[in-house]
């Protein structure tokens, strides 16, 4: 698709955002931490990691999580993931209180998993009936519940589609929401992603030896794996023309989306990088952009040897020496939230005239010809970026983000 053809279709604006991540609660705190390139990974205390290789993760401070109501009983039933979503949605609506989505499309991988864990641990106990809280844990454990809780807490009533495409979920959600508006079928969609740390998922990545006992070092020659993170990020997408007509503040545009499925293996990417490359090519074609028009790539960059090799190869082949960073070194991999969190990071950084840093970077991988933004932010006037997310099951997703000056 040519740029002219792409822009003939409905354009899609980001009119508000909300975020809570290990970098901070809210967009303002997030920009500060991003600019400082701060390492926000810390030792896990929420559950036992005694037998794990990895003992760290990017974690939210409990004080950043939002309450839904003054009803103590109801409050107790809310999972941590729900409280993250409420915090992110509250910030978004403070910025755009009039935003009434026709549809909500969000991503997650495991939602309220820790409630399921508590229920299972309760069953192990001698009591036949299990703990008294079991019904509450069960009712609030399903992955979609956090999104529904947030909509309910903030009096939004849109239908809710929750995508669980593993680590690509957040970018898939934004991309699908973008296509829904671009096709003219919708005017306003709330999109994003969320995930809270849980023991089951943490141990899962640890037992696959995908998690590292060291620092998370994306694209580094000595990278040894990922660390996990958590968070929630939401974006209010609106038909650009309609948003401008009502005088809304336009933070950015989503202008392209590519999705591909790599059938190589359930947990490992095709080493050739064909899956990521296909997703990025499709995103560029969707935006009507040439590779040399991209000024920054927010990489999936988990710091696992396999992912970074496949993704790095695909970026180098398709985009050449474009500035690249993975922000996962700062906060870990927040799975279903990652795509949405990283989209917000990218919009904030571009609007503030810098490119986020790829921290913990020591030495380049000689097999990857990449321009890594090593350890410190880079001042830049880039306005067009690609944000990548890839997941188990071979799902690959890329979106094109275009910003306007702050």
């Amino acid at each position, binding site marked *: 698709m040519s740029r002219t053809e792409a822009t003939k279709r409905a354009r899609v604006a980001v009119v508000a955002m909300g975020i809570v991540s290990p970098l901070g609660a809210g967009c303002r705190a997030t920009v500060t931490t991003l600019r400082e390139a701060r390492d926000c990974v810390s030792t896990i205390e929420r559950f036992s990691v*005694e*037998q*794990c290789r990895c003992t760290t993760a990017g974690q939210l401070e409990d004080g950043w999580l939002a309450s839904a109501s003054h009803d103590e009983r109801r409050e107790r039933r809310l999972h941590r993931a729900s409280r993250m979503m409420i915090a992110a949605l509250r910030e978004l609506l403070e910025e755009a209180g009039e935003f009434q989505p026709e549809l909500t499309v969000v991503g*997650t*991988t495991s*939602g309220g998993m820790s409630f399921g864990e508590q*229920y*299972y*641990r309760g*069953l*192990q106990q001698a009591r*036949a*009936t*299990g703990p008294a809280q079991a*019904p509450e844990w*069960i*009712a609030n454990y*399903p*992955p*979609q*519940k956090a999104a*529904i809780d947030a*909509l*309910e807490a903030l009096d939004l*009533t*849109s*239908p*809710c*589609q*929750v*995508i*669980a*495409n*593993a680590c690509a979920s957040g970018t*898939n959600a934004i991309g*699908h929401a973008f*296509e*829904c508006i671009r*096709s003219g*079928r919708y005017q306003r969609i709330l999109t994003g992603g969320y995930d809270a740390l849980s*023991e*089951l998922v943490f*141990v*899962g*990545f*640890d*037992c*696959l*030896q995908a998690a590292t006992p060291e620092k998370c070092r994306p694209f580094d020659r000595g990278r040894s794996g990922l660390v996990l993170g958590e968070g929630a990020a939401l974006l209010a997408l609106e038909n650009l023309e309609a948003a401008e007509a009502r005088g809304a503040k336009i933070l950015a545009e989503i202008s392209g989306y590519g*999705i*591909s*499925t*790599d*059938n190589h293996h*359930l*947990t490992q990417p095709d080493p050739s990088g064909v899956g990521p490359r296909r997703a990025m090519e499709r995103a560029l074609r969707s935006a009507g952009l040439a590779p040399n028009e991209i000024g920054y790539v927010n990489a999936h960059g988990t710091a696992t040897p396999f992912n970074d090799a496949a993704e790095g190869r695909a970026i180098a082949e398709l985009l050449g020496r474009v500035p690249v960073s993975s922000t996962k070194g700062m906060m870990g991999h927040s799975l279903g939230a990652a795509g949405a969190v990283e989209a917000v990071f990218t919009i904030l950084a571009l609007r503030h005239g810098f490119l986020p840093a790829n921290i913990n970077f020591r030495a380049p991988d000689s097999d990857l010809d990449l321009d890594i933004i090593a350890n410190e932010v880079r001042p830049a006037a880039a306005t067009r970026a690609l944000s990548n997310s890839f997941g*188990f*099951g*071979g*799902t690959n997703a890329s979106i094109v983000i275009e910003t306007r000056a702050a």
Partner: protein
Amino acid sequence: MSLRLAGLGWVTPLGHEIDVVWERLLAGEEAPAVPVESSLGKKPQYLVFRVPPEAVAEAGRYARLRRSSAISRFAVVAGLAALRNAGIKLDEAAAARTALVFAISNGGVIYTKRFYHEIVHSGAAAASPLLFPETVFNAPASHLAAILGITGASYTVVGDGAVGVLALQMAMDLMANPELERCLVVGAEEADWLLCDAYRKWRLLRSTPPIEPFSRPARGMILSEGAGAVLLAREGDLALERIHPGTNFARQSALLPQLNAICAELRQESATDVFIASANGTFIDAAEQAASAKYFGEAAIYTPKPALGESVAAGGLWQLICAAQALRSQRLPPILHAMHSAGLTRSRQAGAAPWHRAAVTVCGLNQQVAACTLQLRS
């Protein structure tokens, strides 16, 4: 944009051939319930409706499914059946123009339980790297995409019993892209003691069959397993006329007003001949009965849950398949064990005009509700 149901496939406790299962439903058959034991040595014992092993024998052909959980095998067999039913064989070019949307609620609970059980009992060091990947919600979709050779859009959507219709909505949105020729929508679930215990503690499950739809008071459901698949395309005689993508209800008492609003909207267009409900012996039955009486009073009503059990994401697609089969065959199976269904029409009256429109409502147990309508076109 109107999409058509080009192919249907299901794997159910009554078998997997579309027409054979339909004939068994028409004959008033009910799947046998079998005990499911707790791997923890816990009481009580629960009963579930299981898929007979021969119904998924075809899955044994695929090396990719060697270590997979039952849910993936159900999904693959149902998905392949829907393609066969549509007379479509996917080569590389056709697969590139095919999307996959997968609906799931409980997911791969058997492997998830086994994986976490090892952590709880033996510590994290004993956790199995073979099990963990199969616990991920999109593992079944990944296996199916690999077997079909799909390299483009593949989405897994999670939700409660409404998720099947939410997946249809996503498929319809995807098909706004003219480059796509078809979208395979699959819903699948597996049954396990842990799920039974959870739903029991949530006061939604009864310990033994039958499921008694529309009974007062509601006595609870029985879980089942399996998959449903529909192939959406641009041509065919069965139009997916309208989807109401649903809404969320905060409390059980709020279901009826939401359902009324949805049914009122669906009702506006033309008369409905067949109404396929999700009634499963829980609180949703009373709301569906009231809404159907108010908005679809003339329609013949059916719920497949007493015969097939409650299979959540798969169940919504089973309902859609029942609606399609009812319009095509102009017949509807008897509602089993419906002792309190006075005022509900159950079959086509002699001399009545042919059925051409069916409505399906799916009320989840966790705050989501959605609906759709089908129209038989000549």
